[in-house]
């Protein structure tokens, strides 16, 4: 009755890639997600008209800060909402059951979903960064100087993927898209404010990642790229937390019932 076709397949990057591509396709067909991209791009463009409200700062600095702020804030909202929505969309439609009853390991499914969301965030950051670069270049900024602009955008991207990983962690055991997206946003807020935790009763918060480290405004203000050693340490910090969140989420998801 059973033959070689029914042997247990090894873990496969191909399946992860398929799930990621499918997730990205789903995301790009969601109106809410497209709205984020269009609104974000419109806001970055809108900084040209808002530059009169620059509170005394230099025009280019204002546009840069505003644009990166849009990428950071819009991206944080997108990371939490899209992760929760794309994760629960397949569960509530029962399409996930068709995937998870195949020889697909649960961690492969979870990592595939996360990779799809990461691809979406990459597209979001790239699109808005291109719009911002065009706006800044149009006002005479020298973007090529030292790669500061690229570094700032990369930091934003790293921050957003961490928010998506936090939300994925919540999704792995949460029961609803509303809870998962709200909890994901609250965890992102806690991570953003983590730098203010200080000592005393709030010292336990130090186990949580500090998203403030990825804020790029200081980088832009300094006008020169960050030291390679600092960037490497930050990348290791990012990778460690990402791995931790994905491993815990995979463990929780393995026990999840449908």
């Amino acid at each position, binding site marked *: *009755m059973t033959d070689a076709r*029914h042997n*247990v397949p090894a873990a496969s990057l191909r399946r992860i890639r398929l799930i990621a591509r499918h997730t990205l396709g789903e995301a790009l067909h969601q109106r809410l997600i497209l709205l984020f991209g269009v609104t974000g791009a419109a806001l970055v463009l809108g900084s040209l008209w808002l530059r009169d409200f620059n509170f005394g700062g230099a025009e280019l600095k204002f546009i840069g800060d505003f644009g990166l702020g849009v990428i950071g804030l819009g991206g944080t909202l997108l990371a939490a909402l899209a992760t929760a929505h794309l994760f629960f969309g397949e569960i509530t439609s029962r399409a996930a*059951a*068709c*995937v998870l*009853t195949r*020889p*697909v390991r649960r961690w492969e499914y979870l990592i595939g979903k996360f990779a799809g969301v990461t691809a979406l965030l990459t597209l979001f950051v790239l699109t808005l960064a291109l719009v911002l670069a065009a706006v800044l270049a149009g006002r005479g900024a020298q973007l090529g100087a030292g790669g500061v602009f690229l570094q700032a955008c990369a930091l934003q991207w790293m921050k957003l993927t961490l928010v998506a990983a936090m939300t994925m962690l919540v999704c792995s055991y949460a029961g609803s898209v509303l809870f998962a997206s709200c909890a994901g946003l609250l965890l992102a807020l806690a991570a953003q404010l983590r730098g203010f935790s200080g000592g005393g009763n709030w010292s336990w918060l130090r186990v949580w990642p500090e998203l403030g480290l990825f804020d790029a405004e200081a980088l832009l203000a300094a006008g020169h790229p960050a030291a390679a050693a600092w960037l490497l340490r930050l990348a290791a910090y990012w990778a460690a937390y990402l791995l931790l969140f994905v491993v815990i989420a995979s463990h929780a998801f393995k026990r999840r*019932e449908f």
Partner: protein
Amino acid sequence: MIQSTEAPWAVEFAGFAKSYRPTWTGRRLSAVESLTLRLAPGQVLGLLGPNGSGKSTALKALAGLIMPTRGTCRVFGHAAGSDAARALVGYLPESPQFSPHLTGREFLEYCAGLSALAPAEAARRVDEMLQWSGLGAAARQRLGTYSKGMGQRLGLAQAVLHDPPLVLLDEPASGLDPQGRLDLNRLIRDLAARGRTVVFSSHLLAQAEEVCDRLALLGQGRLLAEGTPAELLGARRPAAPAPSRLEQLYLEKLREND
């Protein structure tokens, strides 16, 4: 049921029980209580019973989507939900909704990729399944435009795409018109003729009587009766069930109208 000691049962529940806690603080509710049931390879088993009788729970346990609270649940000798068991199972959940932006062919190609079929075999199986399920003409149509019946046939096609020895169908006739039900019966009988084991849940007694080798009647999570239709119906067997005659009349009238 007589079964060789060498070949494992296609399906084996031994004292299987499943209970849920609907809320964190609520008391546990029993979905299935001590179910013991075996099915030999190549047979068609119909799980019959009212809503809440435990049919879907039993199917989900076989598919590895839920874990037993007590007892065991095995598929061809492997613990249900294990990698080895999932490689042998095809599953159609109740009323699934697949990504509306995909075409029927794209969806099956996605499923084939997840089932670890080699690309050439995947292409061949996708073509075969589209023809087998009668969706060849609609293969390039978006799933958002599919009717309920077409969606169910696509669901069935994805469940048998990798030619699994055990096919699990949760309420496959749900929402189908009489012609759709007849098509479904034909597909189930075809699977049985190919030596596949099929377990499906249904409210439709006439359908179950027509296609099943064995029937299991469940009520409030308990197995009320189990056997072949002849064993269960006994002297009542000759009486044709009224819904079947009504379906025949309905179909005759439709044909006359055509």
